[in-house]
């Protein structure tokens, strides 16, 4: 039995948005803001900042759907960290790895009818 296609789709969308949002945020914070502060150059902040704002809305919606599907509790630190990760540079990459190990892989395994590879600790 294959993994639930809806779960697989949401997980793929979450990963894509996590990486894109994370990359855009790194550009914004480590290129755009120094340029704004030291060179008074607003081009990157203006366009990349707006792009990150729009991407983050998508990230929040998809990431929240993902936390529901892998059965994370709504008002848990884990869920809040996943959602806020999109606003803190580099954190999306770390959180994506952690969520994959702790929740996504077990959920995929369960939906595929196999026993979970590792117990979901810290849920």
């Amino acid at each position, binding site marked *: 039995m294959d993994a639930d296609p809806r779960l697989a789709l949401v997980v793929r969308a979450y990963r894509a948005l996590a990486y894109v949002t994370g990359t855009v945020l790194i550009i914004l914070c480590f290129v755009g803001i120094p340029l704004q502060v030291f060179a008074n150059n607003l081009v990157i*902040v*203006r366009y990349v*900042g*707006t792009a990150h*704002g*729009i991407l*983050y*809305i998508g990230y*929040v*919606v998809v990431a*929240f759907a993902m936390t*529901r599907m892998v059965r994370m*509790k*709504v*008002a*848990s*630190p*884990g869920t809040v960290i996943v959602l806020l990760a999109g606003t803190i540079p580099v954190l999306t990459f770390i959180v994506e790895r952690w969520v994959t190990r702790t929740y996504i892989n077990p959920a995929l395994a369960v939906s595929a009818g196999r026993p979970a590879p590792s117990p*979901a600790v810290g*849920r």
Partner: protein
Amino acid sequence: MTDASAAPRGSGGSPPRASAAGQAPRWRVLLTPRWLGWHLFAVAAVAGMCWLGDWQFRRAMAGNTLSWAYTFEWPIFAIFGVVFWVKTIKDELRPAADGAQVSEVVLPAGAKPVPGQGTELAEAAPAGDGRGAGGGRGAGAGDRQDDRELAEYNAYLAKLSREVRGHGRWHGLR
């Protein structure tokens, strides 16, 4: 009106209410001080996001084009805050499904769940069944020994199940 006069005089509605008053309804959890604090936080957060949206709108009107994006973003975040809050409450009001899953302990073949959650050792419970079902299992004394061990094992499993119940759930809102 005609219905009211036709109904028997005694069924005024107070007897069922009195029986229901014995146990508080589930949603009462939402009125505990901790939950009231969270409600307050949610309202403040949503109001704050609306205020930030308004602030960005004023900045946008003042000529800051970058603020136009944020003018629309903050209300969206405020809506998401409301959704998050509603989902949290819905999650809180049905933890029973989780509990039922956890309590389904896989018992070994031939074992029976001990009534009363196994808090007492319940030597009597499986004794009759065990001897009746396990016909080819040997004579009385050994069988009774089995039953005793089985009951103890069941009690142990029930104890583990009780200890683990509620784990794997974050207790911050309880």
